[in-house]
Structures are given as structure tokens and as C-alpha cells.
């Protein structure tokens, strides 16, 4: 008797499965509705606005104007052709260049330094827990606070960084790190690297801890040089974790807003795509134009992720 009740018959099992699937969709619906309201629909609206003449105060009666926010040309009475739109906008291309430059340099630095820190944390030494706790502090500090704090430390007259560098003999006169056009990008990259290094290091460390210890033992017995072990064994084994960490950091870096906006306000050398888009949306009363810029940034990141995942054969879903 008992064996029969424990194993439901086929139709019963199907019924059970169907019931579970119904429940599953019921449970998913509230979450999906919220995501549709905060993500899908606003994204659709932004794209729609980019094809209109919307302005901040006239959102409701925005008129469709096609691609004119992206590209337009008209001929003046004197016969000269004038081009306009985001795609012909020097300020926009400057922001694109700043964003790409910032993303490439900061993610490269964060990866290399993160790997170094992760290798240290993976070694067995006294006080490892303390170091791991300490490196989390920059990550815990809100971005706005880090921007202000570093703005203070990088101040030309009162900043401790100038004092430290002069004490060490690295520089001979005080530098306005955040305000000087030549240095503002360095300042932004440095602060971002400082802030996100913990995240990178911890993700890479998680990958390192998956590497079985006997691989190293075997290499050590065979007398393989540690540097060679790193390149031939460690790096290939942590590659999946590294690839995922890099794409996450890269996406974060390419949409950067707050650090740049607060640390180096008004610097055309550091203005990123997100910063310029927000300025047009809310400060310069060019809502439709800012929407077009936001749309381009979205497409840019979408293409980048797709290429990265396809070319790098990244398994973002982690084994599923």
C-alpha cells in the first residue's frame, strides 16, 4: 500500500507539475510587473523621447520628429550645409572618448591590481582576515563621500596628497589634481580604482580559491617556476571568474556618473556619456537630445556585452 501512495501515478504527477508551474508564474508576476514598470517601460519611453522634440516642461505634448536628434542637416540661404544632432556633436564625441578612455584604463588597473591583491589574500599568512576586512572599507564608503573625501585630499593648497608627494620628492610644486585639465582624468581614474579594487580583488579571490591545491603541489614537485605556474596554470583556471568580473566592472565604469559629477564638475576632460546626457536632460532643457544620448549609451553597452559574451565565451549564468 505505502509504496503505491509514495509514487504518484503519471496523470497525478502531471497534474502536480502543472500546479507547480501555475504557482511559479503566480509568484513571478509581481516581480515582473515591478521590473516592467521601472525598467522596460521607462527604457521604451526614453527611446521614444529620443525621436521627439520633448522638453522638460512639455513632456506630454512631445511631437515625433524622427532621427533629427541624432542627425540632421539643412542648407542655409547662402547655400552652406549645416549639420546637427548628437552624431555631429563635438561635446558628445568628447564624452564618448572620455568614457572609453576612463573605462579602459580604470578596468585595466583594477584587474591587474585586483589580481595582485587577490594573490596576496590567497596566500597563507598571519593577519589575512584583518587585511580582507581592511580592503572592504573603500567599498563601504558611499561614492559621494569618496568623491568629496578625495576632493579634499587632492586639493591643490590644503590637500594631503600634494604634501605627501612633495615629502617623498615625487613632485616639486603643488598640483590641482581635480581642477587641472591635465590631471583631472588621472584623479578620477585613481579614485575609482581605489574604490572598486576590493570588489575586483574579492571576485578574483573567489576564483583563486576554486583552484585545487594539488595542482600547485604537483607543479612544485616537478620544480616548475612559480611565474610559469601562474601563467600556465593559475591564469587559465581563473579565466572564467576573471572574465565575468571584468565585464561587470567595465559596464559599471562605462556608465559612471556620480564620481565624475562630484569630483571634477565642469571639466570637459572627464565628462562622461552619463554626465553629459543628464546635463542635457535636466540642466540644459534639451530633454529629447539627452534622451538620444541615453539611448546611444544603452545601445553601446548592449552591443559591447553581446560581443563580449559571444567572443569571450563567458558563462554569465554560472553553470546553468
Amino acid at each position: 500500500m505505502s509504496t503505491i501512495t509514495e509514487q504518484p501515478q503519471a496523470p497525478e504527477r502531471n497534474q502536480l507539475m502543472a500546479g507547480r508551474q501555475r504557482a511559479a508564474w503566480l509568484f513571478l508576476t509581481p516581480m515582473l510587473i515591478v521590473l516592467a514598470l521601472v525598467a522596460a517601460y521607462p527604457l521604451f519611453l526614453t527611446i521614444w523621447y529620443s525621436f521627439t522634440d520633448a522638453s522638460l516642461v512639455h513632456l506630454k505634448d512631445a511631437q515625433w520628429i524622427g532621427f533629427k536628434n541624432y542627425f540632421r542637416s539643412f542648407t542655409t540661404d547662402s547655400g552652406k550645409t549645416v549639420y546637427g544632432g548628437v552624431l555631429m556633436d563635438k561635446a558628445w564625441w568628447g564624452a564618448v572618448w572620455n568614457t572609453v578612455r576612463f573605462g579602459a584604463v580604470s578596468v585595466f588597473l583594477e584587474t591587474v591590481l585586483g589580481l595582485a591583491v587577490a594573490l596576496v589574500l590567497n596566500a597563507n599568512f598571519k593577519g589575512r582576515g584583518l587585511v580582507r576586512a581592511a580592503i572592504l572599507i573603500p567599498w563601504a564608503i558611499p561614492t559621494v563621500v569618496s568623491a568629496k573625501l578625495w576632493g579634499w585630499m587632492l586639493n591643490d593648497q590644503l590637500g594631503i596628497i600634494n604634501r605627501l608627494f612633495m615629502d617623498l620628492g615625487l613632485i616639486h610644486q603643488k598640483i590641482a589634481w581635480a581642477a587641472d585639465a591635465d590631471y583631472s582624468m588621472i584623479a578620477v581614474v585613481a579614485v575609482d580604482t581605489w574604490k572598486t579594487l576590493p570588489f575586483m580583488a574579492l571576485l578574483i579571490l573567489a576564483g583563486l580559491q576554486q583552484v585545487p591545491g594539488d595542482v600547485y603541489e604537483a607543479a612544485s614537485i616537478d620544480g616548475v617556476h612559480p611565474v610559469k605556474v601562474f601563467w600556465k596554470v593559475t591564469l587559465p583556471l581563473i579565466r572564467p571568474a576573471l572574465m565575468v568580473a571584468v565585464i561587470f566592472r567595465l559596464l559599471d565604469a562605462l556608465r559612471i556618473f556620480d564620481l565624475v559629477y562630484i569630483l571634477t564638475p565642469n571639466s570637459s576632460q572627464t565628462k562622461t556619456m552619463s554626465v553629459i546626457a543628464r546635463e542635457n536632460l535636466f540642466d540644459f532643457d534639451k530633454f529629447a537630445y539627452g534622451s538620444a544620448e541615453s539611448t546611444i549609451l544603452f545601445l553601446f553597452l548592449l552591443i559591447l556585452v553581446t560581443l563580449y559574451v559571444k567572443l569571450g565565451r563567458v558563462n554569465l549564468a554560472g553553470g546553468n
Partner: protein
Amino acid sequence: MKTAWYKTAAFYAFVAFIIVQAVFPFYYAIITSFKSGAALFEITYLPTSFSLENYQQVLFGGNGTFLQNLWNSLWVASITVILALFLAVTAAYSLSRVKFKGRGLLLMTILAVSMFPQVAVLAGLFQVIQSMGIYNTDWSLIFSYMIFTLPFTVWVLTTFMRDLPIELEEAAIVDGASPWVIITKIFMPLMWPALVTTGLLAFISAWNEYLFALTFTASNNAARTVPVGIALLSGSTDHEIPWGLIMAASVIVTIPLVVLVLIFQRKIVSGLTAGGVKG
């Protein structure tokens, strides 16, 4: 095999450098916040004076908006976390334990939302928030923060639930338990560690958010959160930036986070890696 002494020394020097670069800026914010008047203009590595003037002024001076900002941040972040966790627990159950068509696609879509550039939805969200009538209120933030807290909590809880033993659930199904009973009676008691970790991480990201807060509440003094409050502190005087006040405010905003992070260190690391490596 004995390691050469200079290699050990170099290793510990690097360790020391890692610690100093991580800790020093926050330490410097603290010693600055205790300086006032002329002491602010002397650059020192060690604390020289101890005055609570900046704290007093930032908390109780002026029109007292900073306390209001603190309260707003606490309220917004807490409600955001509660709502996100509530929506995410049932969703994560469906995504991790029930096989249905389109599950993989759904998971990838949720992951894609967490990769969104915030500015891409900013224009659309502005319109949605205005037509909902919640512009310049705390609800605009609680609502918009779902875009990053919800995908994150769903992902981490899904990974966590996937690893729970299947036998528990099978036994419950045989006993005739409904999915709702399975979630509340069987999984919830096992999920507290995961809920605390994801909740904490979601809390931190909501507490730190700046772009939405600046856009949706900046013009209403009473609805601002602390990041916006601190960012605007500098604007109060044109010629002189009140560094002492800014550092005091920064320390107040950061101390609770640093304490939480140090207490939950291990859990946070596992939560970050679950949310990062797997999505």
C-alpha cells in the same frame, strides 16, 4: 624550502601598503572632521586637535536638514530592502525550483536589467514618476531603486535556493504541501543568512545611490537623502568650501556602513561573489 628573508619582507611591505591605502582616506576624514578653524589649514598626518564643533553644526546647526536627510536615507533604504526581498523570495523560488518554459531566458533578462545604465531609464522614469504623482517624494526613490535592488536580490536568492537540498522539498510535496507552504515553512527558516546578506547589500546600494536621488528629490529639501545632502553642502558658500562640515557629515554617513561591513564581512564577501560571479 625556506623563503628568502627579503622576499618575506617585500610580501609584508606590500600587505602593509594594501592596508594603509585602504584605511588612510577614511582615517583622514575622521581627523579632519575633528579640526576646526585654523587647524583645518594645517596639513598633518596625525590628529592635532579634537573639537566636536563640525558635528554639532552639521547635525543641529542651520535648519537641521541633515538630520532629516539621514532619516530619509534610513527610511528609503529600509523600505526598498523590505519590498525587494518580499518580491524576490517568491520569484527566486519559482526560478530555482520549478522547471518551466522560458526560465533561462527570464533569468538572462533579469541579469540584463542589472546591467542597465541608469541614465538610459532616467528620462522615462522621470515621466513615470511624474504621472504617478510621486515626484519629489521618498516614494519616487523607493520605486526607482527597484531597478537595481530587485534583479540583484532575485539573482542571489535564486543561486542560494538552487543549492538547498531537493529532498526537503520532495518530502513536503509528498505530504501535499503547496508551493506557498513550502516557501514559508520550509525554505524561509533556512534562508535567513541569505536574506540578511542580500538585504544588507541592497541596503548599502540604496543608501549610497546618487543619480536618482539627485534627479527625483533634489528640488525638495525635505525629501533629500544624505548623498545629495552632502553633495550640496559645498554649494552653500561660494568662496569657501566648508571642508570640516563635509567631513563630519561624511563620517556620520559612513560609520554605520563600515561597522556593518566589518561585522558581516564574511557574509558580504560570499554575497558579492554570488551576485558577481554568477550574475
